């Protein structure tokens, strides 16, 4: 039977279980790192992250902030000469980190994703005033006030709803979600 998978195989299982490991095709050209708009904020560049995954450096990969800083702009994916879906690989490492709970407590990413998904499930669309507090308190007082000012201005101009709005036929939407994922509620 199948041998115990290595870390890079685990990540490739999370990526394309049906298509082998696309990360193995990486030629380390660095186009992804050169393209990335947030690379300045990452401790490891995307190219290095892929190299680290291929080298099975599990702890180093999970400790770095690269995949949490990925803005999912998909520019690397578009430009990759080896046709690796790098943004999707970042999502795979995020999934790994969330499912195995290896992220640090003060990280905004996981809570933000959770709140975002919950508001979508409940209302069918995102609602910023609920979403903002998940990351706002990790910022300085000046930034919080700035955010609050901006939010109020947007509400006054009618650019942001004061109360959460729901989509039409929300029940149908929830049925679609239930078809995909086993969530609570009736069968």
């Amino acid at each position, binding site marked *: *039977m*199948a041998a*115990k*998978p290595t870390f890079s*195989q*685990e990540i490739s*299982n*999370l*990526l394309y*279980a*049906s298509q082998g490991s696309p990360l193995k095709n990486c030629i380390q050209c660095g186009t992804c790192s050169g393209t990335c708009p947030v690379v300045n904020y990452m401790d490891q560049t995307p190219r290095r992250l892929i190299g680290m995954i291929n080298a099975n450096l599990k702890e180093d990969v999970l400790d770095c902030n690269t995949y949490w800083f990925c803005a999912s702009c998909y520019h690397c994916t578009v430009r990759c000469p080896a046709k690796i879906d790098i943004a999707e690989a970042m999502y*795979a490492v995020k999934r790994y980190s*969330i*499912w*195995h*709970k290896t992220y640090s407590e003060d990280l905004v990413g996981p809570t933000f*994703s*959770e*709140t975002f*998904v*919950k508001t979508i*499930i409940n209302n069918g669309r995102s609602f910023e005033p609920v979403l903002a507090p998940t990351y706002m308190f990790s910022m300085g007082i000046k930034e919080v006030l700035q955010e609050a000012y901006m939010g109020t201005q947007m509400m006054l101009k009618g650019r942001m709803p004061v109360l959460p709005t729901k989509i039409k036929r929300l029940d149908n939407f929830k049925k679609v*979600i239930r078809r*995909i*994922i*086993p*969530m*609570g*509620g*009736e*069968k």
Partner: protein
Amino acid sequence: MTQTRLLIIDDDPDYVDGIKSILEKADYVVDAAYNPKDGFEALETGNYDLLLLDIMMGRGAEGVMVARKINKDPVLREMPVLIITGVREQIAFLFPGQAVHPGILPTDELLEKPVNPDLLIEKVEALLKEAKEKKAK
């Protein structure tokens, strides 16, 4: 008498090691597959008595897709399936206290991670017994 053969489909190798050792101690022959694709291939060729299936694999809830495939197969759908999942912890869809309702297979039972070893053995035995009685009919 031939030994009862079980298959685990789960993408977490450490977790597989854990339940594998529990079940092997209880005298079952246990095989493991670490992704849904290998798992389904093993199911088709392996002639197993029971499947232990994880839900959150691959790009999301790929365990559900495996279950649907099983449901479409007239032979495989008779096989008892024990779904072992940490879905409540792994996704944000469930709120505390809300029940998990996969309800995707006619023959399934659900256990939530982390699993109590005694409960695991108990459920496996119950499912196998039920399947045997069904066959005898």
